[in-house]
């Protein structure tokens, strides 16, 4: 008697487990593509997470299995994660990525892209076709500061060497397109560098409160227009081409072939700087959900149904 009861209970437990495993294990809707799950990561600022979401939803609509690990950190964190296999895909900016790998970037998109592709191929990362949209580091001042100091270009700041406070992400002093470049290319010196965030709310607040006079913001951010900041012109061409491009592990592109790259290309082709700015505005200024904004846009450009 006891044996039968024990076996019944064991059997019921196994059945329950199998049921749960089957229910949880299977993928999404019909047309699921077999293959490795694609782990999509992003840097820790809203634009990059939004573009990652665009790629994720575009792939999911084609039936790929996608896992999201957004807002991972800055490049010093997500790039090693991509190279080690913890992430499979991240939206990259070709100029900064190439510099990170030790290459020399330029304002020419094709040149920079080719060099990046070659450099990263050696590490098993395939950089797919780049989008027209660019997002460069930009140095902004408030309208009031621009008027009182009479500055419109980055080189104008040289007249105030040693007196102004620069604010930016903590890694800025180490970055060629941030403080290092301002010092090297423009010959600027600041009274102080304040580590804040990557062109986010802390930097905006610091600018408005005059705790910093110059802040780093991203050129495609909706905030610059919304807050009436003045984006100083990069007259000495410090910033390279920074087109968005999906950086994908070769194992993924090899496993899935051309259809995979084409899906992402459909997104990239339609992503211009103007589109990117308006998408950023919806998320950053209007406070809309990035998932919804992404879904709406993909539908509008015909990538999803």
């Amino acid at each position: 008697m006891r044996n039968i009861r024990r076996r019944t209970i064991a059997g019921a437990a196994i059945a329950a487990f199998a049921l749960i495993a089957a229910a949880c294990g299977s993928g999404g809707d019909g047309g699921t593509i077999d293959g490795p799950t694609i782990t999509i990561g992003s840097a820790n600022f809203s634009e990059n997470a939004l573009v990652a979401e665009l790629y994720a939803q575009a792939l999911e609509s084609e039936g790929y299995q996608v896992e999201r690990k957004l807002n991972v950190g800055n490049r010093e964190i997500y790039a090693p994660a991509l190279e080690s296999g913890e992430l499979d895909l991240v939206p990259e900016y070709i100029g900064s990525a190439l510099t990170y790998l030790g290459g020399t970037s330029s304002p020419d998109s094709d040149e920079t892209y080719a060099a990046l592709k070659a450099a990263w191929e050696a590490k098993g990362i395939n950089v797919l076709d780049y989008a027209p949209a660019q997002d460069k580091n930009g140095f902004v001042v408030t309208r009031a500061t621009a008027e009182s100091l009479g500055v419109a270009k980055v080189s104008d700041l040289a007249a105030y060497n040693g007196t102004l406070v620069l604010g930016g992400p903590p890694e800025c002093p180490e970055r060629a397109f941030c403080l290092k470049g301002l010092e090297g290319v423009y010959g600027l010196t600041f009274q102080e560098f304040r580590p804040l965030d990557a062109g986010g709310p802390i930097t905006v607040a610091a600018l408005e409160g005059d705790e910093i006079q110059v802040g780093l913001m991203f050129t495609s951010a909706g905030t610059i227009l919304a807050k009436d900041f003045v984006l100083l012109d990069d007259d000495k061409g410090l910033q390279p081409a920074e087109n968005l491009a999906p950086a994908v592990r070769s194992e993924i592109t090899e496993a899935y072939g051309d259809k995979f790259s084409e899906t992402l290309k459909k997104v990239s082709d339609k992503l211009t700087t103007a589109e990117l700015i308006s998408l950023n505005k919806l998320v950053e200024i209007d406070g809309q959900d990035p998932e919804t904004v992404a879904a709406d846009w993909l539908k509008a450009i015909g990538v999803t149904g």
Partner: protein
Amino acid sequence: MVATEGCDVIGFLGGVLAWFGDPANWLGPSGILNRLREHLQITVAATSVSALLAIAPAVWLAHRRIGGTFVVALVNIGRAIPSFAIVVLFLPISIRLGLGIGFWPTFLALLFLAVPPMFTNSYTGVAEVDPDLVETSRGMGMTGMEVLTKVEMPMASPVILAAVRVAAVQVIATATLGAIVGWGGLGRFIVDGFAIQDNVTVFAGAVLVAGLAIITEVILGGVERRVVPATLRSRSEQVETVPA
């Protein structure tokens, strides 16, 4: 300087020692001395303001036997909210109030951290004074104020001072969060080191914070020993530990 892979502990510690040995890391606005000064300033400010806010009302309420567990529970709601959340939540409020970033959200979060244990311990310290002792004192002709100042507070002093000591150490550890909202202090080494994946700086920052916490613990412990009468010292064992 990126930390190498693999487990070269000796090499890593060597890197940390070299970091401390480099005078460039000590001087200037982002050097150890300045960050230490900032950290001490906020610790002293937050601990003393918290003490002012917490101890007097708690002691008075306990003396008058008002409130009881309800009051203590109310104050301890502040403890349930993680300091990280408070710092981040206070940032937009601080901005809106024109108080800027950095210092004020951090300072307010530290008040939330330090006030509950000081309040609770002051309250229970006075409330648990032997009622017979209070009776006797009144019988001897002491006024309420005299009972409070000559009997209840001295009796409660070990518990109250211990709470201040524990809170101060907690404040030192938690003030590191300020670096996330644009403030300075020793947390900067941890946050900035992390941003460039420089584990040596991160570790050095942690060492500085821990060192400061230990030194503070020892100094305030010494003060406690001097101020609290020997006969009452065992009461300080009753201080409840402040949860991390």
